[in-house]
């Protein structure tokens, strides 16, 4: 198939998405739009974790930490100094925190960049560790971030967090960033460098013997993943308009891990599909947690039921279909066209 066809199809797909978003903005209620927004953010988070874990084989459980960093950096930059004046009740903010300002696009980039910086700082010592130790160490890092956020009121307003964060993160920004994330990670994974990352996942020793500077590429993958996790966190902050340290518990990382595992470790398509499915599922399960009224009867809500189903689902996936939905396969234009019988010119 000539090289032009996939490009054309991609453009069409993006245009279709644009049309869909335009329609959604005008026709759907706020609740459904919020779900769409969450879907976009979760896809960004899932793609970034998949890069680190699914493609490079680094079992990192620190995603919530990078998200927190992105969220706080972005919030500080988009809250106006007047708002910050009112928010920082415990203690006044540091001067540079008080006066820091940036337009939304740059604020999100800054969130990602600072997260990536921490990714490098944290990755340098920790990426030498093996599998499960890396998991625990990165989990420790995320917890340290949380505890620090709780204890530096002049920077983060401590346990109170931020309220009234300007909600710039609408469908266009979120899906825009989502497409950008998908593009970047897709290009990376498809390049020979992407092959190298997968080689590191498959057999580190052989990779070294083939001249791959394994440590350097682990660090690269880790910090790029951290960048997009920071972006996700930044968008999330603007989306939900309030953040506090309690938001960034291990549960958050767990949710992203769930999406990545269910979609398929090593499949970008899987992360996208699972991002849609799991976000929708989580929202749908909220039904179970809220009281349901049947006329004069009321079934009390069962808080925590959502996570019961969710964690059970993860156990079942890992026991019976650990490769998730897509395994390591991707959906490609060539594949889809072939499936409907169109072969086109031989490559």
């Amino acid at each position, binding site marked *: 198939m000539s090289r032009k066809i996939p490009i054309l199809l991609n453009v069409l797909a993006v245009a279709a998405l644009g049309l869909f978003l335009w329609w959604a903005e005008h026709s759907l209620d706020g609740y459904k739009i919020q779900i769409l927004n969450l879907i976009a953010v979760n896809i960004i988070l899932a793609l970034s974790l998949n890069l680190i874990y699914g493609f490079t084989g680094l079992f990192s459980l620190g995603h919530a930490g990078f998200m927190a960093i992105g969220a706080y950096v972005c919030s500080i930059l988009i809250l106006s100094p007047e708002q910050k004046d009112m928010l920082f009740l415990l203690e006044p903010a540091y001067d540079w925190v008080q006066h820091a300002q940036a337009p939304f696009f740059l604020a999100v980039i800054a969130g990602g960049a600072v997260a990536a910086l921490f990714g490098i700082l944290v990755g340098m010592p920790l990426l030498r560790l093996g599998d499960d130790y890396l998991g625990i160490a990165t989990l420790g890092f995320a917890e340290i971030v949380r505890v620090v956020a709780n204890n530096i009121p002049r920077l983060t307003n401590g346990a109170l967090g931020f309220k009234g964060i300007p909600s710039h993160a609408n469908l266009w920004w979120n899906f825009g960033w989502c497409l950008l994330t998908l593009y970047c990670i897709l*290009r990376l994974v498809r390049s*020979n460098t992407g092959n190298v990352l*997968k*080689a590191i996942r*498959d057999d580190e020793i*052989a990779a070294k*013997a*083939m*001249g*791959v500077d394994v440590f350097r590429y682990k660090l690269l993958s880790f910090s790029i993943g951290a960048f997009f996790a920071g972006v996700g966190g930044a968008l999330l902050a603007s989306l939900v308009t309030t953040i506090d340290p309690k938001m960034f518990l291990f549960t958050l990382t767990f949710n992203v891990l769930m999406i990545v595992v269910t979609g398929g470790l090593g499949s970008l398509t899987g992360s996208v599909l699972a991002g849609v499915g799991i976000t929708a599922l989580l929202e749908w399960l909220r039904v179970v947690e809220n009281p349901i009224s049947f006329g004069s009867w009321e079934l009390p809500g069962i808080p925590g039921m959502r996570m019961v189903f969710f964690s059970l689902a993860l156990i079942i996936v890992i026991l019976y279909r650990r490769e998730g939905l897509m395994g390591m396969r991707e959906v490609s234009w060539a594949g889809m066209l072939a499936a409907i019988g169109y072969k086109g010119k031989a490559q």
Partner: protein
Amino acid sequence: MNTDMILEAKGLTMRFGGLTAVSNFNASLPSRSICGLIGPNGAGKTTCFNMITGFYKPTSGHTFLRGQELTGMPPHLVCKAGIGRTFQNIRLFNNESVLENVMIGCHLRQKTNWIQALFFTPGHLKEDKAIRKHSLELLEFVGLERLADEKANSLAYGAQRRLEIARALATKPGLLLLDEPAAGMNPQETQELMQFIRVIREQFDLAILLIEHDMKVVMGICERIWVLDYGVTIAVGDAAAIQSDPAVIKAYLGEECAHDA
């Protein structure tokens, strides 16, 4: 340091706690030679490979590649300097395709990077095409070009071994270390392998050091042979010398093989 020698190992010793795996290994490999490293199981042959390629840091001793000191370098830099290798228990990138496995080997010599990939720069596109072409050529050389898009772990055993060689060749080595390339082969395949190794040497202009148990292969193609037993070098020489060396016969070859060869 003699630069006619591609590899020089001087006094390489490897001790693990109280156990001495290799003791005072000395070797000089002439450029473009095919040499062999033999010995009973556990003699320390793979340990020598691991010391040379940087996976183990020798307890003492030095390695030189074309006069450049390699001792203590990490494996990826050793590869960069020009040593490629295969593994006793095949270590392919199982989830990647056959072609991707070879392309990963090419990555070392790549000039453009992933950032250029992001922006679709012409330089990157050109290099990507060149890498694919070169990788396919290597696959053709080992006879695997038709399987280019298959997953590496779906290949038959012999094909996997050939893929490992193609991958190692992709790193453009000056010295190729083969760890038991003939393992699991029948006599016909072994003959083909011997010829194949000679062709590799001619076509790629490199030296080859192999660990092997199959004496036909060793005696057939190796110009120089080192014999290890319990980590100690018990003999060095060409095929004829080794076959008639009493120490070697005693430790390793046995009566029958001595008559066969």
